[in-house]
């Protein structure tokens, strides 16, 4: 796997913040970031259900493997030098349910969190 493409929501302050943080992190796998529901995203993945990408983070590998939501976040961690170990830890059967719950909660309330943290444009 050579590249991971992130489809992120540019409308949400939290996502933009994470986007900036990711850009600075040392990586083991190259990360490309494309805003959701744009022409670029549709052109690159013509058969993908782009309405789904608005609900949670989507990560797609250069081979076309699609990861949604919590799995997408784990893949992002996996791509980073400092956090690859954490991606395995959080993906163990003991921790995966918690990971899913926390990530889904954050994704669902991302606009509220962004507002509360003063990350709105």
């Amino acid at each position, binding site marked *: *796997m050579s590249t991971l493409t992130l489809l992120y929501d540019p409308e949400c302050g939290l996502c933009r913040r994470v986007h900036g943080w990711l850009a600075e992190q040392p990586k*083991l796998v190259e990360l490309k970031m494309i805003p959701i529901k744009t022409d670029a995203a549709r*052109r*690159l*993945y*013509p*058969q*993908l259900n782009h309405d789904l990408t608005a609900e949670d983070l989507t990560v*797609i*590998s*250069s*081979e*076309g*493997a*699609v*990861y*949604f939501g919590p*799995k997408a976040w*784990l*893949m992002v*961690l*996996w791509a980073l030098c400092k956090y*690859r*170990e954490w*991606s*395995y830890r*959080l*993906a163990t059967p003991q921790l995966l349910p918690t990971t899913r719950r926390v990530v889904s909660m954050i994704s669902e309330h991302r606009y509220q969190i962004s507002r509360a943290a003063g990350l709105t444009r």
Partner: protein
Amino acid sequence: MNIEIATYLTYLSISIALTIWVAHTLHKNGRIFLVDVFHGNEPLADSVNHLLVVGFYLINLGFVSLTLKLGYEIASPKEGIEALSVKVGTVLLVLGGMHFFNLLIFSRMRRRATMRDAPPPVYPDTFTPVQEA
């Protein structure tokens, strides 16, 4: 030769011998680890191994010479042996600490090296064709 000089010389010879022995052990057994970390690149492993051992020598011999001074008078052979045992004990503890620190470095290097080729933590949800531009 008075008791103090004898104590100092014994201290130096024991400490230096111990340092050499630990460094030798580290050098001999650390190599296997490093060869694995560097994916069989033996010249690189030998070089890193050698550099680690040089650092180990410098720190330990520096410590040994800094702690040489007793700071009080020794009147009898009994006191000499007591002082010697305190000094050598300290050197042993420092050597032990350094040794474990080195092991920690080795294992961390190894873990980092195995992480680099590790597969993704989860299976994909689905597949989609990618339209290359």
